[in-house]
Every structure is written in structure tokens, then in C-alpha cells.
């Protein structure tokens, strides 16, 4: 994999995920589709950046979002009127590169700790033992008296929740709670 491109993507694009998801949630009528939209936007941005890195990543990200939304809206024939008005404002605002998300070590640690705190208790335990105590999945399973498969489920869930909390909007917005709900079921049955 192209390492510099990935690092660029994390720093310049994922850093704006909070704003992007908030924008999508406001603009698109169906909240459940926000994660799919986000993914599609990332794909387009990543593919474009593979050829040429955009000079203003944040502008480019939101322009891509806008195009995707109007494409989809043409197909679905549903989009809130509010969304259309929003676009112009956005057009002006997104060009500003704020240093807000350039975090230093301490702030990053804070954010990670916050994300970790939001995990469901069992999931948090599993993530801690695997990542901090560096136990193998097998050891974690043994210690907690659950199957390796369940450990895996918790880790998968933990990964996704941590990513949403780290990159996503600060408040409990659509996509995060979707995963949280989905994972709270499904889990204990596999024990």
C-alpha cells in the first residue's frame, strides 16, 4: 500500500469526519444511509488523491460530498429543501483550514481515553487486555471465560466504535449509535 497517501488521508481527510458526518446527517433525510454516503465520499476522495493530492483537502472533501448528494438526490428524488440552501453557505465556509483538529500528544491521549470510556463495559475490558496488556486473543478469552470468537466480536466492535469516536462528531450522532445498538444485541448469544 502507498504509505504516504494513507498517512495523508488520515491527517487531511479523516480529521474532518466530524464535520462531514454532521453535514451528511443534516442534509440527507435518511440517517441510516449516512455511513454508506461517508464511505462512498472517502472512496472518491481517496481515488482522486491517488492521482493528484488536492491542494485544499477539506474543500475537496465537501465538494465531493456535495456532488455525491446531488447525484443521489437525482436518483432518489428526495432531499430536504434545507439541504439545497445549506450548500452555498458550506461552499464559503469549508475553505478555511482551522488548526482545530491538529492535536498534540496530550489532546490525542485525551480523545482516545474519551473514546475508550464510551465503549460498552465488556468491550472495553477486552480492548484493554488486548491492546494495553498485550494479551493474545486466546489469553483474553481464557481470562474472561468467554470464547475466542466472542473476544473477536468485541474487538471488531471496539475498533469500529473507537474509530467513530476518534474521527466522528463529538455528540452521539447517527452512525455511532447504529453500531452501538447493533453490537449490544448479537453479542452475548455467541458466548
Amino acid at each position, binding site marked *: *500500500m502507498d504509505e504516504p497517501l494513507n498517512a495523508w488521508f488520515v491527517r487531511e481527510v479523516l480529521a474532518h469526519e466530524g464535520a462531514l458526518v454532521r453535514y451528511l446527517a443534516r442534509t440527507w433525510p435518511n440517517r441510516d444511509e449516512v455511513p454508506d454516503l461517508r464511505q462512498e465520499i472517502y472512496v472518491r476522495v481517496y481515488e482522486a488523491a491517488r492521482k493528484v493530492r488536492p491542494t485544499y483537502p477539506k474543500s475537496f472533501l465537501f465538494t465531493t460530498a456535495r456532488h455525491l448528494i446531488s447525484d443521489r438526490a437525482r436518483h432518489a428524488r428526495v432531499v430536504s429543501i434545507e439541504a439545497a440552501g445549506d450548500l452555498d453557505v458550506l461552499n464559503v465556509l469549508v475553505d478555511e483550514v482551522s488548526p482545530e483538529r491538529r492535536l*498534540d500528544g*496530550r489532546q490525542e491521549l485525551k480523545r482516545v481515553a474519551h473514546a475508550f470510556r464510551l465503549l460498552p463495559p465488556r468491550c472495553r475490558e477486552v480492548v484493554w487486555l488486548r491492546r494495553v496488556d498485550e494479551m493474545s486473543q486466546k489469553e483474553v478469552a481464557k481470562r474472561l471465560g468467554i470464547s475466542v470468537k466472542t473476544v473477536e466480536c468485541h474487538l471488531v466492535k471496539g475498533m*469500529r466504535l473507537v*474509530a467513530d469516536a476518534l474521527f466522528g462528531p463529538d455528540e452521539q450522532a447517527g452512525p455511532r449509535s*447504529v453500531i452501538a445498538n447493533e453490537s449490544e444485541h448479537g453479542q452475548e448469544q455467541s458466548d
Partner: protein
Amino acid sequence: MDKSSQTEEQAARWLLKKDAPNWSESDQQALNEWLESSTANTVAFVRLEAAWQQTRRLKAFRAGTAKGSVPSPDDWQFSPFFDERQTGMEPVTDGAPAPGATPARQRVGLYRTLAAATLVLGLIVGTTWYFWPAGPTYQTPVGGTESVPMSDGSNVTLNTNTKIQVALTETERAIQLDRGEAFFEVAKDPHRPFIVSAGRKRVVAVGTKFSVEREGDEVRVVVSEGTVRIEDATASRAAHSVHLFGAGASKAGTPRLPEGESQATGGESLAGEGVVLSAGSVARAQGDSVLVQEKPLPEVEEDLSWRNGYLIFHDVPLAEAVAEFNRYNVRKIKIDDSAVASIKVSGRFRSTNFEAFVRLLEDGFAIRAQTTGDQIVLSRR
């Protein structure tokens, strides 16, 4: 489950597998194939991997807890990492465990001890200003900007090539500007004045927004909201301790210096009270004199546009614009001709994109730009 959710789930499983000890050459090949089969896979994987790597930082909290036992996250709120006030530690930059940290149960006690220790430290600082308490240091490279939230709710934005030291104590919030420029959004706290020291000058605020820039001898202050006071650091060393003890002890007297004493410190325009600046003021202080210019607020905001990565000029001599650009870039622009230096320019530019600036100069004026090594020399065409 929607499509992106499925992709993400698969990406997570790959990541787990990759982290496991028996990851083989052929596994890597299979992963590569999966990644290359669609950009959606790559993007999901990159995103999760970046987040997952961050969880290693949690090790900073492990110190003291036995392996295999998970501390309650509530124990962390007393962690020294979360409040600069209780600690003289540098900001954590990697996942290394905190040196000398104690088991979670003892942390509350530790917290109290530290709080008491800072109180004492605060008093010492008050009397001997020279000993700056070892607070966290933040710095930016040339061309960088960084926003640093502080535990009192204030926020500092560092401009290019800037270094500050932060010491928040019970009685004051002290920032030392070692070099460069910083913008301060000060959370209101009448009991703890917010003091920015820049060389021989101090800028004192309670709850306001302003920037302080230091260049050699000169200190430049721009106020965009509220009021601040700019005073002499030597005059205020005494005033400072008066302020500190003023709250508790009755013998401390008035929190202000008598006129005579301030004269004794040698200051003139800045002695004692100093100069009060309100929103819209741009002050330049050098030696004992302060020049204050009142500007309309939108113009003041433009002066602060560096926070968004822009430089905005209105009819300024090219020499001045170039000097601004040179603050943000390692490659410097030099003007070889006084006629060129005095050309008036206006516009809005990205501070690190001086190439665009130079190109526009070449297109718009009779100017030739020549690159020699680290320098771009501007001369008449």
C-alpha cells in the same frame, strides 16, 4: 447491515488477524489482494488502522495497575494527564507509561498532594518570578499553526515558529511566550488573572481574546475582544506578588502599586498601571514606549487571519508583505530594489503558499523573481 458496515467489519477482521502472532507471508498477500480489490476496502482499513493504533496510547494509564486488571475509567479523572495544573510533566507524546505513577486507588491521594504542592509552588512563583514552574511547553515549526486547549477552558493558538510555556496555578494562569506569536481566548476567571509574559512586557487579561507577538525587542498585542493591560515585566514583579497575597492576607495592602514605587522600577509609560487596551487596539511596545493604534474590528480580525492559514494585506508596502511571508516559510524572499520594496500590494494569500504570491507579483508587476538556493530574490524587470 448496510454495505459500508460489512466492509468495515471485514476490515476490522483483517486488522485483528494482522495483529495476531502467526501472520504469514501468504496472509499478507491475501490482505493485499483484498485491499486492492476495492478502494472501499482500502479506505475502511486505513481508517480503522489509524484509530486502532491510537489505542496503544492507553498504556499511559496502565502504570501501577496489575497486568490483566482493567482500571475503572472513573479512576482516570484524577490522572495527572488531564490537568496541567497538577503536574509539571511535558505533554505526553507517545504511549509510554507515566513515570512514577501510582496504583489507581492511591491516585485521589496523589491528586490532593499535587494540588497542595502546586499551591506552594504558586506562592514561591509569586515572590521569585524568575523561577518559572516547569509547565508544559508547546511549539510549532516554521509554517505550522496549532491550537492548544487548556484545562481552565482557555484556548491558545500558536502561529508559525512559536514556543510557549504554560503554568496554571491556583492563583494565576501564566503563559510565557518564548518566541513567535500566539492568540489567546481566555476563559473568564476573575480569581486567576491570565498573564502572558513576552520578554520585558506582560499582558494581563481576565476574560478576553487577544494575540501577542514577540519579535526581538518588540512586543505586538492585538485585542479582538474585551480589554487587556500591557505592563512592564519588571514593574509588575512586585505588583504580581501584591496581587498574589492580596486575596488572603490583610497586610498585603492595595493590589496596586503606589505611584512612587512604580517610578522606582524605572518604567515610564509602562510603569505601574501600564496601558489598558480595548477591543480594536493594536499596540506595539518597545523599550519603555507603547504605540497604540485603534482599528475597526473587521480589520483586527484580518490581522488575526493567520489562525486560518491566511495573510491578508490592504495596501501595504511589498517589503512588509514579504516580511510576513518570511515568518511562515523556510525559503525566504528577499527584495533587491527599494522601488520594488515600496510597491503597494493588497490581497488574501495562504501563508505557506508563497510561490503563488511570487507568481502573482511577476504577473502583475514589473518584477522578476530569481531563485538562488534557499532564497527568492525580487528585482525590477
